[in-house]
């Protein structure tokens, strides 16, 4: 495509002719405040914050297409006056209403208000008088704090749920939810990662984690999900795709965690369990296709919208639950620590992991495998609060029971779980080790991917999909052609967990693609690329699981599903 030249504040910029002025500004790190623009969602142009001056006229830049020779000013006196008035109107009472601001957590809106000198007190919002609505124990929204940008609604619609909607005329406009008994939230948190003012946000657990860290009687374990290391740098101004793994290990130690482990170790257990099950279902003629189940958003979707498909879900627990459970049983025994003293904190890119952690059915000897879950954003907030400057920390190492294989590293990307399971299933089915471990067909940002994989004499048909909408289509396909697939991976979020609802804001498909690259790089560098070859996992299975009763083992490794009601 031929590039054209425009000027922003006198600076010449080459851009592609399809873009809007706001997009060009964003790509060139020129700051134009904006609340209703997200590059993956429809252009609404209604927050009226992104004003620029063109030919003495003030217009919105998000819907202003670039043209050769166009010259815009982003901070002329005219722009400043109108833009600031709109910001005062839009952010009236924001600091009083924003949960993050209230408790002093880091908030991007507050930073913007400081930069543009918006008091937020010039006007007062019209009282909405609607309570905060809890999305399970994952997230919540405050209709009073909502600025009606509509992004969460559009995103919830885009993923195929449509739980949220804006209601009310004029200043009564606010966020509410769909009362249709057939529609329910799946706790994915995509709404939270698209809200510019944190009016819909994760249910914050920072305080609980801080309390656990202060408690001298507790042994507090940190475990970080595959995706967090590849995104948290963005909260500290780094480019998307910066791998902060080693710095995070140090940061977690600085926060006062007693042991630094890794959800990646849990991912290797999951792969082990799931690949074993897949091999068995294929060999013994079990229910096929088998679906993955490590995404609680997807599982809630299946349990609410498609209970008929539940026998197809793998009974394997998810990575954070596997590792949490392993540390509270096998590791505790090894270390001669009373399991009740252990507090496991997960750092996840996801809000539905908060929901999953509270499932009674997952308890082992009365204990939740995971006690608290912090999203990537909460983690960044906690680090900032403790003045820990993540990018500049000395690299650290994971404690030895947190070691993982390359198969775990890629769990965060859509297709990663599939690829990991295939690497091990190959061995479980054929008894031989796979040589070429990459399955390129299942990688990438496409919402639905399909592949035929040769395992020994068998050809296995697999599909990988992201977002509920596509899962729904695949389920219909499976019902029509029950033998078409053997194995299907589903993730609720675009791009997989790496595009999860707990990730840094903004999270766009372009940014997610960069984060994904970081995950595959980690895999490439790992010496061990297959879950079943991870020595920690082998130790866990050979010296612990193999020696306890089947029933006990199952309590640590497996789960079950049931049809769910609205709000359950």
């Amino acid at each position, binding site marked *: 495509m031929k590039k054209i030249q425009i000027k922003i504040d006198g600076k010449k910029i080459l851009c592609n002719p399809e873009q809007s002025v706001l997009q060009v500004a964003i790509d060139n790190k020129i700051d134009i405040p904006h609340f209703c623009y997200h590059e993956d969602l429809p*252009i*609404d*142009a*209604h*927050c*009226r*914050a992104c*004003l620029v001056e063109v030919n003495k006229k*003030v217009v*919105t830049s998000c*819907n202003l297409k670039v043209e050769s020779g166009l010259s815009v000013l982003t901070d002329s006196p005219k722009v400043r006056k*109108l833009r600031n*008035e*709109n910001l005062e*109107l*839009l952010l*009236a009472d924001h600091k009083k209403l924003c949960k993050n601001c209230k408790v002093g957590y880091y908030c991007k809106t507050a930073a913007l208000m400081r930069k543009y000198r918006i008091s937020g007190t010039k*006007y*007062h919002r*019209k009282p909405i008088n609607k309570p905060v609505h809890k999305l399970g124990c994952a997230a919540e929204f405050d209709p009073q704090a909502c*600025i*009606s940008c509509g992004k969460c609604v559009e995103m919830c619609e885009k993923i195929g749920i449509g739980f949220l909607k*804006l209601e*009310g*005329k*004029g*200043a*009564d*406009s606010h966020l509410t939810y769909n009362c249709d008994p057939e529609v329910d939230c799946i706790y994915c948190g995509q709404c939270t990662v698209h809200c510019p003012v944190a009016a819909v946000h994760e249910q914050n657990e920072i305080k609980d984690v801080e309390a656990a860290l202060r408690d001298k009687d507790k042994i507090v374990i940190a475990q970080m999900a595959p995706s967090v290391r590849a995104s948290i740098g963005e909260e500290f101004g780094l480019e998307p795709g910066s791998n902060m793994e080693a710095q995070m290990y140090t940061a977690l130690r600085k926060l006062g965690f007693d042991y630094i482990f890794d959800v990646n170790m849990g991912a290797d257990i999951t792969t082990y369990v799931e690949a074993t099950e897949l091999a068995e279902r294929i060999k013994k003629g079990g229910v096929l296709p088998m679906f993955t189940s490590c995404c609680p958003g997807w599982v809630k979707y299946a349990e609410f919208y498609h209970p008929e498909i539940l026998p197809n879900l793998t009974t394997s627990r998810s990575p954070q639950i596997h590792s949490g459970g392993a540390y509270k049983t096998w590791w505790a025994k090894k270390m001669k620590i009373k399991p009740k003293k252990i507090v496991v904190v997960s750092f996840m890119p996801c809000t539905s992991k908060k929901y999953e952690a509270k499932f009674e059915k997952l308890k082992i000897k009365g204990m939740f495998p995971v006690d608290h879950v912090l999203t990537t954003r909460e983690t960044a907030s906690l680090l900032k609060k403790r003045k820990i400057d993540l990018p500049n920390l000395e690299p650290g190492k994971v404690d030895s029971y947190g070691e993982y294989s390359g198969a775990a590293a890629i769990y965060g990307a859509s297709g990663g779980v599939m690829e990991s399971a295939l690497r091990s299933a190959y061995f479980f089915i054929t008894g031989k080790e796979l040589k070429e471990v990459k399955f390129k067909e299942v990688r990438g940002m496409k919402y639905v991917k399909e592949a035929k994989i040769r395992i020994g004499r068998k050809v296995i048909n697999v599909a990988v999909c992201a977002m509920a909408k596509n899962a729904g289509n695949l389920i219909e396909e499976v019902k029509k052609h029950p033998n078409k697939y053997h194995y299907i991976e589903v993730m609720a979020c675009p791009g997989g967990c790496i595009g999860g609802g707990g990730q840094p804001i903004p999270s766009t498909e372009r940014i997610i693609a960069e984060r994904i690259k970081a995950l595959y790089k980690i895999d490439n560098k790992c010496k061990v690329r297959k879950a079943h070859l991870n020595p920690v996992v082998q130790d866990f299975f050979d010296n612990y699981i193999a020696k306890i009763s089947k029933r006990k083992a199952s309590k640590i490794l497996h789960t079950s599903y049931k049809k769910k009601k609205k709000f359950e």
Partner: protein
Amino acid sequence: MNNIIDKIEEANLIGRGGAGFPTARKWRMVKEAEGSPKYVVSNASEGELGLHKDIHILKKYPEMVFKGMVLAMDYIGTKEAYFNFNEKYYLLVKWKIRRLIKKYNKLGYNFTVYQEHPSYIGGEETALLNAIEGKKVQPRSKPPYPVVCGLFCKPTIINNIETFFNVAQVAEGKYEKKRFCCINGPVRKPGVYHVPEDMKLDEVLKSTKNWPKFKFFVQVGGSSSGPVYHYNQLHKQILSGAGSLEVYPATTTPREILTKWFKFYAEESCGKCTPCREGSYQLYELIKKSGAIKWKEIMQIVETMEKTSFCGLGYSIGKPVKSYLKNVLKKKI
């Protein structure tokens, strides 16, 4: 009736909904646009204050309205039309309308009646289309314009009731360059009059025996969004906008008139964009406060709404407030 479009052009018909777009041009664009079925939508929303000419026309000349719509349908080659009614209006005329719909049904034309909660935003074409489609009643981003992507994203003619009436008159050779004028306020004979479109406003008031004995000012073309003139300016003005003329006694206080306007905007803002949604609410709050009127604060919001609102509803607020300040209060802020 192939030459209807030339006749309309020759008669210089412009839309009577308030925006004043040339009717022939609109129709041509729809005819040329790709897509089927195309639609004809007639709008009898009249959410603006001071307007009641649509109901007047619907009561007196419903056949003419249908005739105009059918001409439009034939011209663009469709059998599909929608009638948007302010639901209060529909109650008053539904028998007549149903009979006419049946009549044209037999000739193969389909008319669908849509009843809207009376709202000002219904006058915004794209918001009206959203309403008919069952979406949130808020304006759409333009482009695409309704002439290419209108109802269900098909090329659509949307015209006001009066425009279709005029088209029928043109076809019958009876069009006399007149328009309907709603005269409101404490005058002798308030009501709807059919007056020459270029008649000066003082003439309009005098010829209808409505020239008041007291000192006054007027608001023209919509009693919330139209401009305001002092009575001694009327010999230079003609009827504009959506066709209303409201007389206010000179004793009307600024607080009274601002309260009327701001309340209207606060209640009618659809809630889509920041300046209008929040600004109209803050304006109403400001004017409700006792004490001296806070002109500076008010004008800052008015200016922001005027220059940065998403649609015509929001930015129309500048006109009445500014002209009132200039022509009546003779004040600079």
